[in-house]
């Protein structure tokens, strides 16, 4: 202990340099964490968060009693998480391998640069673009009419939105996501490929026996990092792109967009606070489990 104090004193300059970040996180992350106790309180604006009366588990009872809403947003959140993780990661890897194997390097670089661009467009702007395609006189309906088909009123038909949001998300994120995998591929020793070629391996065999296995550690990290966010969603995608339209909730409402909507429209926060706590706790438990499992199997790939 004395050694520790001595060491900290010796490094007092370093300690002082840490203070700004320590304070920002204290006030903007840690104290709000304590604010999550709202889940057990009935919010009274005049008394503030800390003074509001405790109501025990009432909020959670409401949450469970709401049945349909609760199930719907949980199921949707998990559904989109699974789709985005599986499809997104596969496409990231596919694009990365495709560009890596591409002989025309300059063209490949240009393609990659363009693919990344969509990630820089905020969902507040993306919603206008989606509307230009799916609005009543949007591109897609124009094409449908051109082909002699009936135009579809996308914004009142919930059944299409799982696909629509998936396409938008892939458009937005795949180019960006592939960069990480590209960097791993660039690090593979080219001599391995040459050796394989000399031994008579064809392109497909090289990909399955050299390229894909070398991507496993990175894929594990990506999946691990995403597990903690299993209950969280890209709020903008679900709130902005769907224009927060109630007709579409059955396929588009996720926990995050539900909470944002509650914040914007009501002042009955207890219920949403319960949903938020549920979201955070599930996320934390899952990432701890996932990390534990990975550490058992392949310690090097664990997060912590």
């Amino acid at each position, binding site marked *: 202990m004395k050694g*520790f104090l001595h*060491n900290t004193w010796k*490094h007092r300059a*370093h300690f002082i*340099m*840490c203070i700004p*970040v320590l304070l*920002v*996180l204290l006030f*903007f992350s*840690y*104290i*709000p*964490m304590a*604010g999550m106790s*709202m889940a057990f309180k009935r919010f009274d*604006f005049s008394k*503030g*968060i800390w003074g509001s009366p405790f109501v025990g588990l009432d909020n959670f009872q409401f949450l469970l009693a709401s049945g349909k809403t609760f199930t719907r947003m949980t199921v949707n959140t998990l559904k989109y998480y699974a789709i985005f993780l599986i499809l997104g990661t596969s496409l990231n890897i596919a*694009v990365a391998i*495709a560009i890596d*194997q*591409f*002989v025309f390097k300059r063209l*490949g670089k240009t393609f990659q*640069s363009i*693919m*990344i*661009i*969509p990630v*820089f*467009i*905020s969902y*507040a*702007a993306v919603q*206008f*673009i989606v509307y*230009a*395609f799916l*609005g009543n006189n949007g*591109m897609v309906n*124009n094409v449908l009419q051109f082909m002699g088909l009936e135009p579809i009123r996308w914004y009142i038909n919930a059944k299409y939105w799982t696909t629509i949001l998936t396409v938008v998300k892939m*458009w937005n994120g795949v180019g960006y996501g592939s*960069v990480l995998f590209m*960097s791993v591929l660039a690090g593979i020793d080219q001599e391995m490929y*040459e050796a394989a070629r*000399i031994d008579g391996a064809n392109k497909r065999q090289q990909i399955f026996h050299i390229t894909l296995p070398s991507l496993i550690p990175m894929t594990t*990290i990506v999946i691990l990092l995403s597990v*903690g966010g299993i209950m969280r969603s890209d709020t903008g995608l679900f709130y*902005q792109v769907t*224009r927060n339209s109630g007709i579409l909730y059955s396929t588009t409402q996720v926990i995050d967009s539900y*909470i*944002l909507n509650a*914040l*914007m429209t009501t002042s009955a926060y207890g219920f*949403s606070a319960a949903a938020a706590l549920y979201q955070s706790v599930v*996320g*934390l438990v899952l990432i*701890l489990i996932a990390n534990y499992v990975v550490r058992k199997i392949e310690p090097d790939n664990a997060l*912590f």
Partner: protein
Amino acid sequence: MQNVISSRSIIKVRKKKKKGLGQYILALILGLYTLFCLMPILLVIITAFSDDKTIASKGYSYFPDKWSLEGFKYVFKYGRQLFTSYGVTIFITIVGTFFGLFIMSMFAFALSRRDFMFRKFLSMYILIPMLFPAGQLANYLVYTNSYKLKDSLLLLIIPLSVSTMNIIILRTYIQTSIPDELMDSARIDGAGEYRTFFQIVAPLMKPVLASVGFMMATAYWNDWQNALLYIDTASKNPLQLLLIRIQKNIEFLLNNKNISGAALAAIQQGIPEYSATMATVLTVIGPIMIAYPFFQKYFIKGLTIGSVKG
């Protein structure tokens, strides 16, 4: 040995020539996917320069019958508000990015000192908020109800200024790319820790600061959620909030006049027009599109550093 070298060089020569049919198919697929990424952005640009009445009657098109600058003229009718919003967005982007880079790189520097025993605690301290975030609701209540910061630009700046991932990127860069000997010799020459950091380490961190800075700047530029939750006054609306307000106006018009042919005509004369909206979108996303090519190199490097565990 001689044999191996020569066979290798033969392979290399052969590899260079190998542009078989497969490569052209790959080019086609990648090209199509790139087009898929590009088309929506092209539509924004084309619509912004299209004649509004044509869109209203014939719908959006990549090949408008008539080009027009009306959309941009209309943007200037949002006029003052657009300029104010630009000012707000630029302000929070610049202040936030520099503030964040400044405090995070100092923290990362301390974290990279291997003999600093306190660093274990520091690592945990930044890891916990990532694993157990309070979430938007608790944030909202604490910021507005306890801190009384509602409608303050501080809420657009500070919460986004520190992120665990960025600190890890900065720390990894210091550990791997800046030799310890350099810092040691500075200390031997009598430079204190502050001087070592600001005069020796910080200048050498330029590449990583550029990449982290660019990522932070886009996060600030694109942040709509904090603005939507916290900002009320028009003079404090950033660009993204302006976009949301415009959309709300359109919605209002649509909901008032049940979508029909007559309504389309009404909207045509009404406030938000197709080309004007897209022109606004273009003015919002434009600056990042322009900055991106300059930062691309750093940006990709930054992503790569972040993936190295240290």
